[in-house]
């Protein structure tokens, strides 16, 4: 099995994640898209680590997981807070910084 297929999968996953982030309004779903992109990146890291026989990529994947875990905690907390105050989880409703 070609090792580059993993990279193709990573690109597809990333594209799906990015599309989700750009097109969906629901904050939870957008969040899922972000997670998907992070994991696609992880897959790419690991694949490259395997190709080059270098563990740096694997280590970086761990870092990404840790940061992603922390990000999930903070992000979900923000989403819930916004939902509580605005009765909506749509990202388009959160545009108070505009002008």
């Amino acid at each position: 099995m070609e090792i580059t297929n993993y990279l193709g999968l990573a690109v597809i996953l990333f594209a799906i994640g990015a599309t989700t982030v750009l097109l969906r309004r629901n904050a939870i779903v957008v969040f899922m898209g972000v997670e998907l992109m992070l994991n696609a990146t992880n897959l790419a890291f690991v694949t490259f680590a395997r190709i080059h026989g270098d563990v740096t990529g694997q280590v970086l994947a761990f870092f990404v997981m840790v940061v992603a875990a922390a990000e999930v905690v903070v992000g979900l907390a923000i989403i819930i807070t916004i939902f509580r105050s605005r009765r909506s989880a749509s990202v388009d409703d959160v545009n108070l910084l505009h002008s």
Partner: protein
Amino acid sequence: MDTQTTMQTLSLAPWLVATPMIGALVLLVAGRRTDRWGHWLGVLASAATFVVGLVMLLDMLGTPADQRVGTHTVGTWIDSGPLHVDLGFQVDPLSMTFVMLVTFVGTLIHVYSVAYMDHDVDRRRFFGYLNLFVAAMLLLVLADSYLLLFVGWEGVGLASFLLIGFWDGKRENAVAGKKAFVMNRVGDMGLIVAMMLLLATFGSVRFADVLPAAGEGATAAGQATMTAIGLMLLLAACGKSAQLPLQAWLGDAMAGPTPVSALIHAATMVTAGVYLLVRSGPILEAAPDAQLVVAIVGALTLLFGAVVGTAKDDIKKALAASTMSQIGYMMLAAGLGPIGYAFAIFHLLTHGFFKAGLFLGAGSVMHAMDEDVNMRRFGGLARLLPVTAITMGLGWLAILGVPPFSGFWSKDKIIEAAFVGEGWRPWVFGLAALLGAGITAYYMSRLFFMTFAGRRRWRPDEGAGDDGAPVRHPHESPRLMTWPMIVLAAGSVFLGGFLALGDRFVTWLEPVTGHAEHHEPVLPVWLLMTLTLVLVVLGALLAFRQFAVAAVPVEPPPAPAVVRAARVDLYQDAVNESLVMRPGQYLTRALVYSDRTAVDGGWLGLAGGIGRLGARLRRMQNGYVRTYAATMLGGLGVVGLVVWVLAS
């Protein structure tokens, strides 16, 4: 530091300027506190100046003729590298002549003004300005350099402006003051440019340095430079002396109180241009072209003023036109070269007396007629104002040039000098001067007869039938007004003959103007004299028939185009307006427009463009998270593309 002379009283010269200046400062700075006695202080300052001048004159008369030119330096005024100007006073027969004229006539007019301005709440301020004028005028004639002369030149301009607009409660008076000031500025530019040229050419503006250098020939300077200097000096003289083409302000200047018209706009200030040209004689002689232009300007103005004078119904404006014409005579004489200088100053002196007397007489008539100036509403005043009528009558005979009155001795000499020369010049200038004498006789007689002779065109009381004529109660003026008029009338009668006998005045001025060779005119002298007298008598008789024998209509009758033109000053204001004012306004408007559109427009456009760009960019910050995410993705794509292009 005194030079060249054995005169004892040279160091008094600064006091001639300082005395009236102190008077002006006290009156203007101390303000209303001096209201009660301020006018007498003004008279005193002027009289004291006259006494100082008289002492110096007597001293000068006791000095040999070759010792009479001196300078008195008080100190350094400007010391800036190559430019060194002293605060120095030029004392010589020419400046002393002016000192005597200004202080003597000035003092008489001060006395006259005490009564004339009696009912004016601002009489003290008026005397402050008069003293300021005397101080500035004396500085003008006593300065030993063009730069110091310029200070006096501007000073008299300021005093003239303040006094023309003295009754500035009325808008037209203030406008007249402004008009005089602005037109004078045009002339002042000429003097400034002339000084620059003198500095560049001779490295000095002192008379003592410049005039001998110019007299030694224009070898170093070049003919063109000398002509330019001469023409610029002429421009300055035209502005101050109301000569063509800067003559339009003088008629309007009559808006000032009548003593001002007598002192400033007839006897002294307006003659400053003649003084400047006579003083600069060597420069003009080095520039024959400029000298010719001076004579042409003089000849044109003497005819211009005379023609305007024939049609004016305002007694003061008729006299103003006459002043312009008489100064034209002086300019003509100044443009004739050394043979004319002495006669120019001589006529200036006699004119100072008889014209001041005529103006004071006009003031007295106005006083009697409730400040009316329209001669068509005068008439038959001789019996009611005997002193005024007699003094004005003597002034009238003097300006006509009837022998043996003052004007005869000076004007006849100018006509004679104008006929001297070769080619076309003596004929043109001489005939212009001759013709001017005839017209002068006509318009001055018209003025005299319309005022004092003929039928009354006013009513002495209400009862005498209502024919629309205004009610007047003419009465002779108080003694304070009549005495100055009497003294000036005496001057109009005797001064000319006294100074002309044995060529006294010409000899007196010789240390300054140089000795002029006697030249024979192209026509014999007796013929010229006879022609002049015949023309004068004809002019006077014509005026007598029209304005003393025939009834004078109270409204200006319909008249041919020439008279209509003369009534509006030969369209001088229309010409100035269309040739100078309107194009000037268009020019400034065009400049303002181009400044707004090109300069301002460019920078405002740039600023506006950046502002609009900012507004456009700001719209990208719409607050939608997904837009930001898309931007980031797009940016990532761009970065990736760049990296890929660079790597491959």
